[in-house]
């Protein structure tokens, strides 16, 4: 059991980060604003979680300008997809073992 616990991915401990990854698994690209709407988080809060995921290498950030407005979009990296899938597998194994 402890073995399983140690395999839980620390990056996904927070619910917000888990939600962000869930969204990016099924949507190729999401803008900052779409994510904010969907997750009902504040700008600062969302930005912090996104930065943490970016630092783990799980999501990639792209900034461009639409007219004069900056638009930031996010996508899951291959490493992020693998890590998320592993995390789900551990969750599943954990529930089966209970």
């Amino acid at each position, binding site marked *: 059991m402890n073995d399983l616990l140690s395999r839980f991915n620390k990056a996904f401990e927070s*619910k917000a980060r*888990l*939600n962000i990854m*869930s*969204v990016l*698994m*099924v*949507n190729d690209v*999401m*803008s900052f604003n*779409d994510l904010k*709407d*969907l997750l009902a988080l504040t700008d600062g809060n969302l930005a912090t979680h996104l930065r943490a995921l970016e630092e783990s290498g799980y999501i990639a950030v792209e900034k461009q300008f639409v007219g004069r407005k900056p638009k930031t979009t996010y996508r899951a990296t291959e490493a992020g997809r693998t890590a998320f899938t592993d995390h*789900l597998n551990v*969750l*599943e194994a*954990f*529930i089966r073992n*209970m």
Partner: protein
Amino acid sequence: MNESREHLQTLSDIRSMMERSSRFLSLSGLSGVSAGVIALAGAAVVYMRVGLSSYSGSYYGSVGNSVSRSAADQFFVTVAVVVLIAALLSGVFFTVRKARRQGQSVWNQTSRRLLWAMLVPLAAGGIFCLVLLLHNLIWLVFPGTLIFYGLALLSGSRYTVRDVESLGYCEVGLGLLALFFPGYNLLTWAVGFGVLHIVYGLTMYYKYERSPA
């Protein structure tokens, strides 16, 4: 045990987040019902004015007076356009209301995707049917609108509740069937846009919206 429940909760959160971010789920069943009722009313108005058989394939052979024919066509097209606009407005109204109640925005990535997926078949169908009208092939407009509308629903169903797919298949099937029975055009139209919408809308309403008392 408690921990297990927590993990199950996490899994269901993930699942709902995936659904919510990739599908537009605020589509209201009531908008289907209202669109159906409006369509039935429109069909009734046309029926009272020109009768059931007017838009059959034999129509052009049996009616000699071309003036009354084009007047009837014009009347029919006017009613159809009014029905379309009224149905769209009521549909938007109920969907916006549902989205507000769910505390979600109506204009987001999923609704944009849904509209775009439906727009291409609808625009193609609209142009196709306008050209049919230009060529005086009005009896073909009835199956044509049903088929293209059904295709638009099938295309859009990937971005909203899955039940829309069944409605799409029904509309396409009915449209194809209507091609073989041109004498019943007004009837198939009333069934396709009226009855099917009401059945679908009520199903949706009882399945997703009416909170279990």
